[in-house]
């Protein structure tokens, strides 16, 4: 579906079901340089099971208009504005990688709006490798190639996509190259590198929180994810073996099972 935030058109996948204001809202926030399509194996399930699942394209990404937002704080405010724009008062947030920084900051800033928080491959800070940052800011496709290398675990490098016939690394590469690299990945990486408030924001979070981490995640290692989770009261942690940073695709079924249990328990359909 399309709607407007700050006068710019926003695209969000609704997981194959029409948006219905009466249903509880889950917003999925993608990682650096990526799009709503990374969530296809989570959103469609929730959409077919009574929720409004909105996998958004951040401004300047995927099918959304506008320019990429330059800071995690701006993105956090923008996600809160999405909730208003679609006519809801509250939502559950699900973030991946950079999307975790955004959703942590958003939850800390808007505690009344956010009912649950699910983090995948999250950390309190994501400092960027200077060479990688420079490549992305200079529109070098090598930045995408490096990101796809680091983002997939050893098993994911071989393939084994849960959807028959799809090949992880090339699909991710095409997603990240679907818009101009310096305007998406470059801006996102800089925003991640500049963001320093993750640990402080985490301390303010009071809603039920889930962290899904992966043993072979090179971009946000388990120890970093645990450090963040430890600052959030009552945070649940689930660790997936033999999996890299792209756990939402590499181990989509496992992620969905854990997420389904967490959201249906803490943000049940009755709460709408």
């Amino acid at each position, binding site marked *: 579906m399309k709607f407007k935030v700050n006068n710019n058109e926003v695209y969000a996948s609704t997981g*194959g079901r029409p948006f219905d204001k009466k249903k509880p809202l889950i917003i999925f926030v993608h990682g650096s340089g990526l799009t709503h*399509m990374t969530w296809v194996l989570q959103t469609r399930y929730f959409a077919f099971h009574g929720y409004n699942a909105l996998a958004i394209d951040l401004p300047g990404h995927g099918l959304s208009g506008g320019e990429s937002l330059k800071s995690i704080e701006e993105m956090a405010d923008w996600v809160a504005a999405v909730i208003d724009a679609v006519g809801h008062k509250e939502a559950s947030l699900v973030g991946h990688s950079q999307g975790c920084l955004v959703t942590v900051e958003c939850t800390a800033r808007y505690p009344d709006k956010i009912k649950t928080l699910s983090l995948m491959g999250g950390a309190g800070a994501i400092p960027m490798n200077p060479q990688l940052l420079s490549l992305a800011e200079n529109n070098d496709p090598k930045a995408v190639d490096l990101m796809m*290398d680091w983002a997939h675990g050893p098993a994911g490098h071989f*393939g*084994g996509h849960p959807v*028959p*016939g799809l090949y992880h690394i090339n699909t991710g590469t095409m997603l990240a190259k679907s818009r101009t690299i310096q305007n998406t990945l470059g801006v996102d990486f800089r925003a991640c590198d500049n963001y320093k408030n993750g640990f402080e924001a985490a301390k303010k979070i009071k809603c039920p929180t889930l962290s899904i981490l992966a043993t072979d995640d090179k971009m946000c290692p388990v120890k970093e994810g645990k450090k963040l989770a430890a600052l959030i009261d009552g945070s649940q942690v689930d660790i997936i073996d033999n999996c890299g940073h792209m756990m939402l695709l590499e181990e989509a079924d496992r992620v*969905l099972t854990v997420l389904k249990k967490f959201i249906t328990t803490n943000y049940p359909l009755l709460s709408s």
Partner: protein
Amino acid sequence: MSDKKKELKPNTYKFDTLSLHAGYQPHKNAGSRQVPIYQTTSYLFDDVDHAAALFNLERGGHIYSRISNPTVGVLEERVASLEGGTAALATSSGMSAIFLAVMTLCEAGDHLVVSSQLYGGTVNLFRLTLPKFGIKCTFVKPRDTEGFKKAIQKNTKGIFGELVGNPGNEIMNMPEIAKIAHEAGIPLMVDATYQTPYLCKPFEHGADIVIHSLTKWMAGHGSSMAGILVEGGKFDWMQNDKFPTMTKPYEGYHGLSFAEEFGPTAFTMKARAEGMRDFGPCLSPQNAWNVLQGIETLSVRMKKHCYNAEEMVKYLMNHESVAWVSHPSVPDHPDHELAKKLLPNGRGSMIAFGIKGGKEAGVAFINNVKLASHLANVGDTRTLVIHPASGTHSQMDEATLKFAGLSHDMIRLSVGIEDIEDIKNDFEVGFRAARKPRLVSNQ
């Protein structure tokens, strides 16, 4: 210690490694080092919810082997990885892959621009069979790059061609034709069977959909029929309103918009969800496994194929019984320079040559070679020969033969990986037999 910072390099697996490993994770298959053959029609659902989730594409997984199968899935991922594609869909043959690609793209009333130099069966599909479905085609000679542009109509939905035409070895200027297609907002589909991804990766030159008959060089062993279509993932289906079944909520699949939901894999998802469901040209798991065995040695075999082919080109060019030789490695081949650009790892192992003495000599040659096999296939590890005018293209009338660039003296040679001297010795026997009728008639 050096002050120079180490340059970052992606450590994704390279071609030879992917040929052996891509698409398969032993730890999810009882530790089996070899890919298991899932000889089954169907798959247990955990519960009713799981079943519904699979049918609604909420989860990945297998339902019924007409739609997907784990062994076939390994093959699909492996070929996608080797081609640099986002996704692939394997089929029962190369022809069914072409048909599925067309039917995923087109509907009645649509039009395609097609290279005229194609395998005879493909010519018949485009010329005679697709019009029965309301899909019309305009044929253009592969070297007539501007002709492709001129042939595009309002209802044209794509351009199709064999990168190196069968059997005349004419090469499409893929980068230029891709530009023409993209300016018109339509995809370029390329049959790259003759090249395999070892010799050329068409996505790097602008193609959007790549098709292979896996029966040929990819498998190599000549034991199994198989085909595949591979998606490049760059084509923007939403740039215009030409592809409503990709971009709008599609009645044919529960109101799904494939382009919005699946982006760089939309074409494959639609081909599988709709095409495999409705047409059902599924690949058997046994044949998928057989093809996988071949792909494991693809680069090793292709190097030998190309070496032997270039040796045969030299041999044929200097032979008194040969009137002409067509192979992109020949310096005066019209596409020699283009071939160097598109096929840097070798120019392939298909040679066409004219035998002095015309049809009669050709028949004598074919009937007398013993090592080379006379059959209707290419890309076997064994050397193969055929006389197209009386074999693969025999269903064409005289005018169509001429348009397809065929002549009665043409012999199509698919060079195998036997010892090169044995192939040459065998050809000497064939040439001697081919000369005999003429020697007799000259006396």
